């Protein structure tokens, strides 16, 4: 791998142990994927919830944070993915002091490194939207796939240690989705319907994601007749990335690198796999449980936009969540502040909901809070969260936001599978 003099100096430790670790990480990953050199990154999005970090990785961060300022400060603008503990609300959720303390320690370490604690996975909607062709180091599969696909920016999935390495060096290895050739379409799907709500957009993404063979497969979706909203693309992409570990999709006539099939495939398009409404609904209904018991309703993954918070407040206005059910909505600090100002938080909480800021449900010790609160049956309009939480001991179910709210109010799952 070809390194500049400056990169070689960092690798040799000339700028301290933090940048040495960071360049070692960059080179190790770059060599694994046959990268020829590095690219400068314009922005870093760093995922590092305390459940993932554990004592070991928090200790690692504190070691970096103890270095002199010139050795520890990040060199690219760096923002954070959701945290694991909302320090204003953790006691309501029966999170422990140990969990909260690990969160406090990791926040202190990141601040010492010059990281901006935005605590959001919807940074592309709320902080600094990426632009076409910009090289990034984004963590969170949802932010990565949105930046690549909808914005036309360029990033691989950058897990925490590598996003931090990119932040400390300003570099990431040039491989994968930084390269023109890798971004061309490889598989063709044609959709014959328009999903009716966000849960259906997520289910559609899940159907495509389930079919992906590896990280390197790039699905192209044709047949979407008019632009989806940012939230619809958010749920579609987040589910696709979650079910498929896929960082890029194209939608012909919609996303910037797919003006038409010929361009996105760099030649004739392969035969299309149909994406039917029946397949979307079948995926959603595959989570339908055997009985109507309900413990918790979660709106998160990705965090809710202002529009979603408005929709949720509209559905909950003047109603009351049943005492046997907990309803949680997670959003970013910026959107929470806007919701406080606009009265949306009060509407949701007056109806018995809990609005969390700067966290996301599956990143906040989901197994432990499930056990502490006696939650197993979970309902959400997020295909991504439904996919994740099966491994955390939950019985998750996918439904529209309205269906979730109706069920929370009734205290049981209402209606039936399609």
């Amino acid at each position, binding site marked *: 791998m070809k390194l500049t003099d400056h990169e070689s100096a960092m690798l040799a430790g000339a700028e301290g142990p933090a940048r040495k670790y960071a360049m070692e990480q960059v080179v190790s990953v770059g060599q694994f994927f046959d990268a020829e050199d590095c690219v400068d990154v314009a922005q870093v999005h760093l995922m590092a919830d305390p459940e993932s970090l554990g004592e070991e990785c928090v200790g690692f961060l504190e070691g970096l944070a103890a270095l002199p300022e010139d050795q520890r400060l990040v060199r690219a603008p760096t923002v954070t993915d959701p945290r694991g503990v909302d320090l204003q609300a953790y006691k309501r959720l029966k999170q422990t002091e140990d969990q909260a303390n690990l969160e406090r320690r990791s926040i202190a370490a990141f601040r010492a490194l010059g990281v901006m604690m935005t605590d959001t996975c919807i940074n592309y909607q709320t902080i600094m939207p990426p632009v076409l062709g910009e090289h990034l180091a984004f963590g969170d599969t949802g932010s990565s796939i949105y930046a690549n696909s909808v914005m036309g920016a360029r990033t691989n*999935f950058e*897990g925490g240690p590598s996003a931090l390495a990119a932040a400390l060096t300003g570099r990431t290895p040039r491989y994968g989705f930084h390269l023109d050739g890798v971004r061309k379409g490889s598989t063709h799907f044609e959709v014959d319907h328009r999903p009716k709500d966000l849960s259906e957009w997520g289910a559609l993404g899940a159907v495509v994601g389930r079919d992906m063979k590896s990280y390197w497969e790039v699905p192209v979706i044709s047949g979407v007749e008019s632009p989806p909203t940012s939230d619809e693309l958010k749920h579609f992409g987040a589910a696709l990335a979650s079910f498929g570990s896929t960082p890029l999709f194209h939608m012909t006539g919609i996303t910037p690198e797919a003006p038409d099939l010929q361009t996105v495939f760099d030649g004739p398009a392969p035969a299309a796999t149909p994406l039917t409404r029946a397949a979307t609904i079948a995926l959603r209904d595959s989570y339908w449980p055997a009985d109507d018991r309900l413990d918790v309703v979660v709106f998160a993954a990705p965090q809710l936009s202002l529009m979603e918070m408005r929709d949720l407040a509209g559905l909950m206005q003047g109603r009351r969540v049943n005492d046997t059910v907990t309803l949680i909505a997670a959003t970013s600090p910026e959107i929470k502040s806007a919701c406080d100002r606009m009265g949306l938080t009060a509407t949701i909480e007056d109806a018995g909901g809990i609005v969390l800021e700067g966290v996301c449900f599956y990143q906040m010790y989901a197994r432990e809070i499930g056990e502490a609160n006696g939650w197993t049956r979970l309902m959400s309009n997020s295909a991504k969260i439904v996919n994740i939480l099966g491994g955390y001991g939950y019985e998750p179910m996918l439904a529209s936001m309205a269906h979730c709210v109706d069920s929370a109010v009734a205290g049981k799952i209402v209606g039936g599978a399609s």
Partner: protein
Amino acid sequence: MTRQSKQGEVFQGHVGIGLRVTGEALVASDNFSARYDLDRLKGIFSRQQHKLCGQSYVGKILILNAAKGGVASAWMLREMAARDMGPAALILNFANPIMAQGAAFAGLALIDRFDGDITALVKSGDRVTADPAVGTVEIL
């Protein structure tokens, strides 16, 4: 019919990450994510739909198809290793950047991109050596 692996067989993959390691293989044709699939406190697969659900991966040469899911595995592999609750090596048909980043950070052996389907070439219980420096898995 299950293929019988033979002593001394060597399977060639791409040059990997980490140090040479020997251990018992745990194999399935399923995919892998530390967050989605594991109870990391107990050291077992916990996702009901996973073929290895209920089985311990601790200290095993874990051989699976492709990396799936989110980015958390990049931190989690080191956190698991620090508690001596991680696999001894991760062998995949297709890694993604997250597994490579996590392996580099954890010092975990990782090899992928074999000539054939590695999940069909090795079976659970085989004793194998994984050598990332040359990208090989050898049946002992």
